[in-house]
């Protein structure tokens, strides 16, 4: 609809009547001339003056239109879509400036970083604020943090806050930011509410809106101000660093597989990739990456000392620096204490031998075999992994002790056998630690001609990652003459299955610990597994996995994730602290829960290595990385963004557009005063031509 920004001028519309009044007054003041005879004049009047009168009427209309358009031009007419918004046009405004400070905003451009451009744009928005307006400044990535929890009228302070704001390493969640901002401004009493979204429109930030679109709320108008220049961007990223197919051992070569990608759709890139361990550069490779190319790089290095190590793989890049490093931690175990609990001497022998073939050899695995009865008196706090092999049952205390062990992060491997009590396993042990049900036995140990094999394994699982050939799972299956048919319960995953479809190896997570449950026994009567070549690597990887899988649960920790470590107890007089990548040491408060203690650190806003210390001793190290979604700088199409926001009351202002004009135009509509002035000019020309064509062309004496 049409609205007027300077509506007071409209009072001048009365002047539209001027041409008509002048016309009428002129007619009234016409001189009367006595003439000999008007018969001729009447005759000619009838013929000629009809056209003249028509022209006069046209001229009158033209002059009226000229005055009308002139007044309208000064009244600054504007076309807008909403009547309600028009009413609000002159009311005080509540403004929320949403400044995207996600990682992608750190990209460098020839005119400075995208975040710097966003801040400049935000300052321009502040310059548009008038006395009586109020404003919020909201910095957002995947987290939304109002820099001004209360609306401020102190615009100099607002400018200062904008200037002081810094980009984060977080991902973008536009939906969340908008939703929280709607809540923030919903309580404002001002009729006029405006949200300015300053962002690089990076696609990843809009995925939540793609899933669940969100219209503009709180009766506000939303202005999207994309700030990233529409240029050719490039970005090299280290996507992953992986060594999980090996058991890190001190002094032995360790192979790191890094994946490097060129996210740009247009520009090929020359990349130098380097491996750093404990801040020392260990290896370097050079890569040529085509657009959208992804290549793997392998580094081999030796970590001399056992313990917790940290490192990263870095790629050289010059536009977005924050995602150039991929951090990792490396736990080179000094020893893994394994407690084998079995009343079957053969099973105990096979397991003990497989874990440490020679007592004289130095190895990581330190196994100890005891019977079920011995478990009652054994302190298991120093044990990393417990293996239950053909254990008939446990009493209540033993079961509780085992349950606490697992929930505090211990690893448990359950193997079946002839002695087990199905009811105890189904009702107690498995029910508490690995929800699954043992059903009927499959096969017969005496009939060696028929057996089961494992025909499906989860090749991506750390236990089976080494059993691959040409990138495909290739597990050399032993023969299983007997096994149990097991039905997995909720939260239990089958890592391997027999060829009859029944699960062979299951995994569950209980508390902070993990449980692996094998549906057969380590008994030559049940299977030839103990004498097969795959047995030792399978057992070692399973134990290693159970011992080292915590605390990150095998998943990569991303910026913003909470870090936690379980402890049996904190010694008297000792403190637990967290040292951030920036070197800051923060004391952590342990929190007890179900008989164990945990410390948590949540402020992981920066990628890098976070270290937990108990006193001066290193407890754990965590590698926190940036979300790869932020590395793809492809912007979302503006129209698509508007669609996702429902289009209604959503306005887009191009990066190069003059902000005040664009904002006023969208606030008040498209201003038409220039068109009105052009209209006046055109009408003046027409009036002049029409007027002159009708004026006298003959000279003659003036008669008064």
């Amino acid at each position, binding site marked *: 609809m049409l609205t007027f920004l300077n509506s007071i001028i409209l009072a001048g519309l009365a002047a539209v009547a001027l041409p008509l009044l002048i016309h009428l007054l002129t007619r009234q003041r016409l001189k009367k001339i006595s003439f000999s005879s008007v018969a001729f*004049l009447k005759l000619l009047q009838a013929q000629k*003056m009809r056209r003249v009168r028509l022209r006069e009427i046209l001229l009158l209309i033209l002059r009226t239109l000229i005055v009308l358009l002139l007044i309208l031009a000064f009244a600054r007419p504007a076309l807008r879509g909403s009547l309600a918004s028009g009413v609000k046009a002159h009311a005080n405004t509540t403004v929320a400036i949403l400044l995207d400070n996600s990682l992608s905003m750190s990209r460098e451009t020839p005119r400075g970083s995208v975040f710097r451009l966003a801040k400049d744009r935000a300052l321009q928005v502040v310059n548009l604020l008038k006395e009586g307006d109020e404003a919020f400044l909201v910095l957002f990535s995947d987290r939304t943090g109002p820099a001004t929890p209360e609306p401020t009228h102190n615009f100099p302070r607002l400018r200062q806050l904008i200037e002081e704001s810094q980009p984060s390493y977080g991902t973008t969640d536009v939906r969340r930011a908008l939703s929280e901002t709607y809540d923030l401004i919903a309580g404002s009493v001002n009729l006029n509410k405006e949200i300015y979204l300053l962002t690089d429109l990076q696609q990843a930030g809009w995925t939540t809106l793609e899933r669940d679109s969100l219209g503009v709320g709180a009766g506000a108008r939303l202005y999207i101000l994309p700030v990233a220049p529409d240029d050719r961007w490039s970005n090299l990223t280290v996507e992953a660093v992986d060594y999980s197919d090996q058991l890190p051992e001190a002094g032995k070569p360790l192979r790191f597989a890094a994946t490097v990608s060129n996210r740009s759709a247009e520009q090929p890139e020359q990349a130098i990739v380097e491996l750093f361990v404990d801040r020392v550069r260990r290896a370097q490779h050079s890569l040529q990456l085509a657009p959208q190319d992804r290549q793997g790089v392998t580094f081999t290095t030796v970590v001399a000392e056992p313990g917790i190590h940290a490192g990263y793989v870095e790629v050289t890049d010059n536009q977005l620096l924050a995602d150039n490093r991929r951090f990792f931690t490396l736990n080179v175990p000094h020893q893994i204490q394994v407690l084998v609990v079995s009343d079957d001497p053969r099973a105990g022998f096979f397991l003990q031998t497989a874990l440490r073939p020679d007592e004289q050899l130095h190895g990581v695995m330190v196994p100890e075999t005891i019977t079920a009865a011995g478990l009652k008196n054994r302190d298991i706090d120093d044990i990393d992994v417990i293996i239950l092999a053909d254990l008939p049952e446990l009493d209540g205390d033993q079961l509780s002790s085992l349950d606490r062990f697992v929930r505090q992060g211990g690893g448990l491997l359950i193997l079946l056998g002839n002695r087990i009590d199905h009811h105890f396993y189904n009702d107690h042990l498995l029910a508490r630690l690995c929800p699954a049900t043992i059903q009927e036995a499959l096969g017969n140990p005496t009939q060696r001609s028929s057996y089961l094999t494992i025909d499906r394994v989860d090749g991506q699982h750390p236990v089976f990652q080494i059993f691959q050939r040409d990138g495909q799972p290739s597990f050399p299956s032993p023969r299983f003459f007997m096994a149990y048919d097991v039905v997995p319960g909720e939260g239990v995953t089958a890592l391997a299955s027999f060829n009859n479809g029944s699960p062979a190896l299951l995994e569950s997570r209980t508390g902070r610990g993990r449980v692996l449950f094998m549906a057969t026994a380590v008994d030559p009567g049940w299977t030839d597994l103990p004498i097969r070549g795959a047995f030792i690597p399978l057992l070692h990887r399973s134990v290693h996995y159970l011992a080292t899988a915590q605390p990150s649960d095998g998943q990569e920790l991303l910026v913003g994730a909470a870090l936690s470590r379980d402890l049996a107890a904190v010694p008297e007089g000792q403190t637990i602290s967290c040292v951030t990548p920036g070197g800051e040491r923060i004391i952590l408060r342990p929190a007890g829960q179900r008989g164990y203690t945990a410390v948590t650190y949540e402020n992981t806003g920066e990628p890098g290595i976070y270290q937990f210390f108990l006193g001066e001793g290193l407890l754990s190290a965590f590698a926190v990385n940036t979300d790869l979604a932020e590395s793809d700088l492809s912007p979302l199409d503006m129209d698509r963004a508007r669609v996702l926001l429902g289009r209604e009351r959503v306005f887009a202002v191009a990066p190069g557009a003059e902000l005040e004009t664009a904002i006023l135009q969208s606030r008040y509509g498209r201003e038409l005063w220039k068109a009105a002035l052009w209209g006046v000019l055109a009408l003046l020309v027409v009036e002049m031509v029409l007027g002159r064509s009708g004026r*006298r062309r003959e000279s003659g004496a003036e008669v008064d």
Partner: protein
Amino acid sequence: MEDYHRFLNPELVSRLSSMEIRARLVVEGFITGLHRSPYHGFSVEFAEHRQYMPGDPIRHIDWKAFGKTDRFYIKEFEEETNLKAHILLDASGSMAYRSDGISKLEYGRYLSAALTYLMLKQQDAVGLTVFASGIRSYLPPRSARTHLHTILKALNRVEPAETTDVAATFHQLAERIRRRGLIIIISDLLDEPDKILLGLKHFRHNKHEVLVFHVLDPFEKSFAYRREAIFRDLETGEEVTTQPWHIRGEYVRAMTALTGRYRRECRDSLIDYVPLDSSVPFDRALFAYLSKRGRLG
């Protein structure tokens, strides 16, 4: 010696005080001009004096010559005719129109006076009829010099009427004037042309010689007004608002066509048609008269 010639200018004449002076000065001016013109020879002056003989009219005695010579002399003119002329002066409302100089009626009055003076000086009988929608005054033609004053007095009294009916008046006069004579019409002829022409032809039908002085104001011919105005009809009071520049061309064409028609039809009917405008010196009309008079013998 006074430059009488300047008294042929209508505007100047209008400033003179009495009608007689106007008539005399116009004619004197005209005659002065004649002496210098190719029209020399018109017998408007007396030819000689002769000794008074008993039986001669006493009124022909030249008393000035008697005063000088103490003898009676009689003025004898070259020609003496018994021409009877009727001056028909249109005093309709439209004749009162004036743009810048004098009105058409004034022009007509002065021209009538001059013609009367001239004709009486030539010993012709002259009469005056003032008409508008009908005959308003009628003075039969006489050749006595005293008749001059009568006519001039009548001319002094002429005021414009409101309406006009030229054609009817012409018919009425044609019927009234039985004896053949010279009919001099001074009019703007602003009436229906067909009827006017019929009236003129009526005179001709009655064997009259007809001389038409068609008097128009310069602005009636050019319609050179510049501003939009309300034009009020002097006779009917009707008003027309117009922008002159829009209709000027059409108007001039229409007026030219009208005068052209009068000229053409008068010629066809052997009527002398003399278009005049109120700024034209009187000698043009007087020439026309003398030319006509000369042809009449």
